[in-house]
């Protein structure tokens, strides 16, 4: 049971919908639901991956953002060129803090922005020449890059530039892989399509590069897919896999390299953390290279142990023993953390509104701390994400798809959670409402949150936020007195 019972939750949704005009109301109603664990197919009660209604202030990004910021940005030795006007580059300045090991601007380029800075004349006369020149310049200035990728922004698709031809020509000239990515922002309804397009581009332009030339590899080769190394997440995950005896060949894409991508077809199992953004390539590798894949969850000790065991079940006894050894080694540390923070966090309610995997993946970690997730939603999920979420959430909790700023605020006002986890766009609105808030996209400049080491940071951060003394000082002193006076009278 959540905070509200089913009728109250339904009534809340109705109340929130009240302000919309008839048509918008009908549409938005399909995106909000009260969880019912008996439902096996989310599609019957929630609609997702649909175009946002104009005027309702969605929090989504565009396909270009999904491609440049999410999938391509974190590969450290691939220079990602934002091809088009300069403004879109907002998504490309490394704001997600995808950590990497390397020297920025010399051999690693995650936090450097490359843009072709389209001007009017490029729109009128075409930008292919400019792109070719840009690639030459980049090659001259940053010779240690291993590959380039070209992310097209809206105007490129509108004026019909042929970035594929330029990429092919330049790739031959400079002897590096150049990947054109057709991720114009107007495609699709959210950043989600950008992930898909990027997966397809990797499939077509990079993955087959070493077909037939790869060595056998070891029987314990695995790849981490869909971990963007935010605040060091992938590193905290990788060490656990290595400790149990697996050989991590590739990280997609946090701290990853092009050679790692090319080597991935030799792995024996693909480990998928962010299902939403990389399931496409995992499915492709399953078909073409016969590599099975599985989703795992490295948030919180319960889920980590569960995942480690499930990963090990794909391998022989040495790995299974390895998994048990790793779990046994870290469990006392985890018990100490839970003993410390659980009394401070027990019973607190959390509402989440994030992206690809976190609204469902972090539930276990919160529960380990005795907290309860009473509402969860995604910006750009599809039905398969909600299928998975319904199972994780308690009955009568709120689930919202592509929520608008207004809906979120209203839900929070009424449900009164002790913590809201969402992104930078929501952060200050909730701070002003006096609600403790954590950014769950970038970990609020903290991290890692994955793995056992990550849980220690996660628990500390949640405590730090929820129990911060500032929340009790929210009333100005003179208002405080009024409140006390009123209480006295009453």
């Amino acid at each position, binding site marked *: 049971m959540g905070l509200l019972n089913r009728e109250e939750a339904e009534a809340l949704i109705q109340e929130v919908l009240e302000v919309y005009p008839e048509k918008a109301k009908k549409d938005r109603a399909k995106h909000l639901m009260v969880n019912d664990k008996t439902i096996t197919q989310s599609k019957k009660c929630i609609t997702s991956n649909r175009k946002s209604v104009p005027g309702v202030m969605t929090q989504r990004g565009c396909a270009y953002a999904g491609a440049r910021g999410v999938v391509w940005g974190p590969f450290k030795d691939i220079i990602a060129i934002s091809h088009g006007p300069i403004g879109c580059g907002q998504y490309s300045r490394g704001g997600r803090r995808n950590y990497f090991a390397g020297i920025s601007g010399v051999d690693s380029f995650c936090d450097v922005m490359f843009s072709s800075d389209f001007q009017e004349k490029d729109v009128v006369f075409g930008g292919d020449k400019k792109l070719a020149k840009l690639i030459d310049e980049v090659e001259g200035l940053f010779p240690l890059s291993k590959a380039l990728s070209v992310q097209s922004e809206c105007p490129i698709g509108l004026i019909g530039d042929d970035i594929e031809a330029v990429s092919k020509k330049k790739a031959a000239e400079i002897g590096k892989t150049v990947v054109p990515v057709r991720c114009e922002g107007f495609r699709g309804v959210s950043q989600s399509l950008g992930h898909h397009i990027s997966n397809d581009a990797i499939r077509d332009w990079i993955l087959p590069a070493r077909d037939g030339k790869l060595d056998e590899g070891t029987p314990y080769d695995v790849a981490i897919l869909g971990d963007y190394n935010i605040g060091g997440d992938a590193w905290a995950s990788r060490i656990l896999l290595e400790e149990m005896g697996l050989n991590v060949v590739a990280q997609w894409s946090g701290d990853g390299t092009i050679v790692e991508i090319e080597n991935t077809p030799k792995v024996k199992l693909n480990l998928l953390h962010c299902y939403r953004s990389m399931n496409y390539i995992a*499915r492709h590798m399953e078909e073409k290279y016969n590599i099975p894949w599985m989703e795992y969850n490295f948030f919180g000790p319960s889920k980590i142990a569960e995942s480690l065991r499930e990963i090990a079940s794909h391998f022989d006894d040495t790995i299974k023993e390895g998994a048990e050894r790793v779990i046994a080694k870290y469990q006392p540390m985890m018990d100490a953390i839970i003993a410390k923070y659980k009394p401070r966090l027990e019973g607190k309610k959390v509402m989440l509104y994030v992206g690809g995997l976190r609204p469902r993946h972090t539930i276990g970690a919160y529960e380990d701390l005795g907290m309860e997730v009473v509402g969860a939603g995604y910006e750009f999920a*599809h039905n398969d994400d909600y299928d998975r979420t319904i199972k994780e959430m308690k009955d009568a909790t709120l689930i919202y798809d592509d929520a608008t700023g207004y809906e979120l605020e209203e839900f929070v006002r009424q449900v009164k959670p002790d913590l809201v986890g969402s992104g930078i766009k929501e952060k200050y609105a909730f701070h002003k409402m006096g609600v403790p808030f954590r950014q769950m996209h970038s970990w609020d400049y903290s991290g890692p949150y994955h793995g056992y080491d990550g849980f220690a940071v996660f628990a500390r951060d949640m405590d730090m936020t929820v129990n911060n003394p500032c929340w009790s000082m929210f009333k100005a002193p003179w208002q405080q007195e009024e409140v006390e006076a009123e209480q006295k009278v009453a």
Partner: protein
Amino acid sequence: MANIMIRKSDKGYVFYMPKRDIEDSIVSMEFDSPEKWGGEIKLGNGGIYYIEPQVAPERLPYSVRAKRIDGVE
């Protein structure tokens, strides 16, 4: 006509359409023998698709063209 991918899970065949990102269980398949495979397939969500009957693929997952006959998308 659309490209779909058929996989095998522990619960039977799974239908996946990359373009629309639809994943669902296959509850029934008209022909399911090594020599003749495909035909009408029914999905968990009520959708019905048609695959040209053919020799069963050697290995799953397998991508194939399918026609939507009925039901939700």
